[in-house]
């Protein structure tokens, strides 16, 4: 079973996300900001994927992504952004920082499935 880390400061989004990921057959971990997410990622070297919000307190999604991609780890997880930052310059910025796919909120289950399939997580 593959493991995905949901990073979002909104409990509601994590709740919906957890249910969706569950039906897609993924094992779900959660974090509510980038700093927590880094800790979870470090504790889980086998982590397969991260679904990542952008705007969060303490450490935002972009800082997390940059830090993650600079870490020495045997396995770099697939990172799918999942954010309300829906303009082209931001998409470009995230992709250049090492994201693999991009979901513009509001999302649906179909979109999440498509994007996870697209990146080989499913």
């Amino acid at each position, binding site marked *: 079973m593959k493991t995905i880390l949901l990073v979002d400061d909104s409990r509601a989004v994590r709740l919906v996300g957890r249910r969706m990921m569950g039906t897609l057959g993924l094992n779900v971990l959660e974090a509510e900001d980038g700093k927590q997410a880094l800790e979870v990622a470090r504790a889980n070297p086998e982590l397969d994927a991260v679904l990542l919000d952008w705007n969060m307190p303490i450490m935002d999604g972009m800082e997390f992504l940059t830090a993650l991609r600079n870490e020495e780890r045997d396995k770099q997880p697939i990172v799918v952004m999942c954010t309300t930052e829906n303009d082209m310059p931001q998409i470009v910025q995230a*992709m250049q920082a090492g994201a693999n796919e*991009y979901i513009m909120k509001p999302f649906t289950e179909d979109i999440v499935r498509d994007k996870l399939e697209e990146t080989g997580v499913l």
Partner: protein
Amino acid sequence: MSPEDYTYITKYLLDTTGLSLGENKEYLLEARLIPIAQSRGMNGIEDLVLSLRSQLDQSLKTEVMEAMTTNESSFFRDKRPFEEFKTSILPDLIAERKISKKLRIWCAACSNGQEPYSIVMSLRENFPELIDWNIQIVGTDLCTKALHRAEAGVYSQFEVQRGLPVQLLMKYFEQCEQGWKIKSDFDVGIQWKHLNLLEDFKHLGMFDIVFCRNVLIYFEPDLKKNILDRIRNQMNSSGVLLLGAAETVLGISDHYSKLPECQSAIYRVSGQKTQETQEVT
């Protein structure tokens, strides 16, 4: 809605668009047709049927036909057919056509355009050697509204996230007020044409590849056969036909054989052209 009105409209749709609604779809007809009646100040479906029967109002006829079409589509729909198009169909066809450097592709029910745009992107991404080829892509549909959308190439945020990898969104689309638009400097070279598959389409000429996906599914077997046979007559001898995921030629037309190397509904024409099959209308 009275049983007589129901019978009249379903027969009307069957004759004009091929759509076979069957029984007990009153709710669907009402949901789609009451708004039309209201927008014309009519007193419900009864008035609408009266007006249809009088045959006087051409624009009402078109509006009713178009209201009943299902235009749902997505980029690279079902994914695998497009993978197989890239790996199993195009390489051989390109090798075969390397002297004439010409390919003609038809999307026979292109709806809002995701299918032809997916084809163009796939060609650009995977076959840069085709840059100096004469590639003609013809997108046709019964529904004028869908064709207008296709030509404008504007999609909602939701639509560009279905099946379209973000890398392709970044490369081929720009943001606009209504969402995302095919870049104006991306010369897609698609010809858009209004066409009812029940009518003659010989004037479109001959094709190497025909996408006829997720439209025959709404038709009765006889009509499917009629259309498949006439499509066969518009295909070159090594022509390839792609159907939707839930569609098959099996038991309907024997002018095609399944490509064994493909898992999707992809067929090569087999044997001779069919006897002249007449269009239905």
